[in-house]
């Protein structure tokens, strides 16, 4: 028989949050925003470095399924998610999420689609430019989501 035990802990955090002093919500959020603004240049440099790694990884891909290579690309792309917002190119986060979805689906299906991978890598480079008009970026993202969505449907059908 499985035994189940309940414990009712009292986390200290609740008391600490209520101690006098601290910050008003508005001020704290503004502080965090300013802090993130301060790391924008380094964040952009790191995101570009990840993009270059990803481009190199893409060019080194063989023409058939290679799980290790796809995992490596996934590990690069996943590190970039979240940085786009900080760097002022929030669309990159969406593109990278689509890229990770695609790579995860390809690994699940043990399939390879060079063009689908390539279009995500090229879109990442394109979306890094803040000069890209909003409508153009939307079109790019719609295209990426269609590509990764096609494999999502295949994965769902296979389960």
């Amino acid at each position, binding site marked *: 028989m*499985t*035994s*189940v*035990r*309940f*414990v*009712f*802990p*009292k*986390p*200290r*955090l*609740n008391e*600490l*949050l*209520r*101690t*006098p*002093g*601290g*910050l*008003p*919500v*508005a001020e*704290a*959020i503004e*502080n*965090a*925003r*300013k*802090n*993130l603004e*301060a*790391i924008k240049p*380094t*964040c952009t440099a*790191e995101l570009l470095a990840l993009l270059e790694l990803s481009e190199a990884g893409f060019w080194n891909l063989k023409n058939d399924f290679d799980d290790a290579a796809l*995992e490596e690309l*996934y*590990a690069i792309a*996943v*590190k*970039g*998610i*979240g*940085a*786009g*917002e*900080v760097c002022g190119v*929030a669309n990159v*986060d969406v593109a*990278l*999420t689509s890229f*990770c*979805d695609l790579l*995860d*689906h390809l*690994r*699940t299906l043990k399939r390879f689609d060079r063009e689908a991978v390539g279009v995500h890598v090229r879109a990442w480079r394109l979306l890094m430019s803040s000069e890209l008009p909003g409508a153009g970026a939307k079109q790019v993202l719609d295209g990426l989501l269609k590509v990764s969505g096609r494999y999502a449907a295949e*994965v769902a059908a296979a389960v």
Partner: protein
Amino acid sequence: MALDVASRARFNLERAAVLLLDETQLGMSILVQIVTGLGAKQLYRCASLEEAKAAATEHEIDIAIVDAMAPEGKGYDFVEWLRREAQEPNCYAPVLITTAHTPASDIVRARDCGGHFIIKKPIAPIVMLERIIWVAKAGRPFLFTGTYVGPDRRFRDEGPPDGIGRRREDIARAESAAKAAAEIATHDIETPPERSAAS
């Protein structure tokens, strides 16, 4: 639960010990900027599972913000370790898991590792603050079973699907409610309302 970004309500994170785990410099840097902006001063920055275990063994922590660290998902391993191996009170510490992307193979692991909340990246500071306040207040009981150790995941009672339970009395109750509603609807059609209610 949504916090107003313009709120003047105060909170104090100054004395809270915050454990941060993220293996990437980029992720850690973003996390640090957010939590220090929110007022946290006592941070344990950990770049690996081993560092995080050491920090949780040596210091009392009030909250852990742990990146899942895909594709290996080492963040989940840390949360599982914290729940099962760490000493009190750290084993009960609120844990927020941040994730950039969860591979399909890790969804169950993410659900079952014992975290309080999963936050999807990119992380907005207001979302982080909302979740910190939520996990501090929630007071969810901890559950120890053979397969799961962590906060009780049944914290939101949304009732049965479609609002109707499967017991005989639930079905009877639903039928009588439907009948009453039909009678009211007929009545409404016959006598138009005098005034429409503004919502």
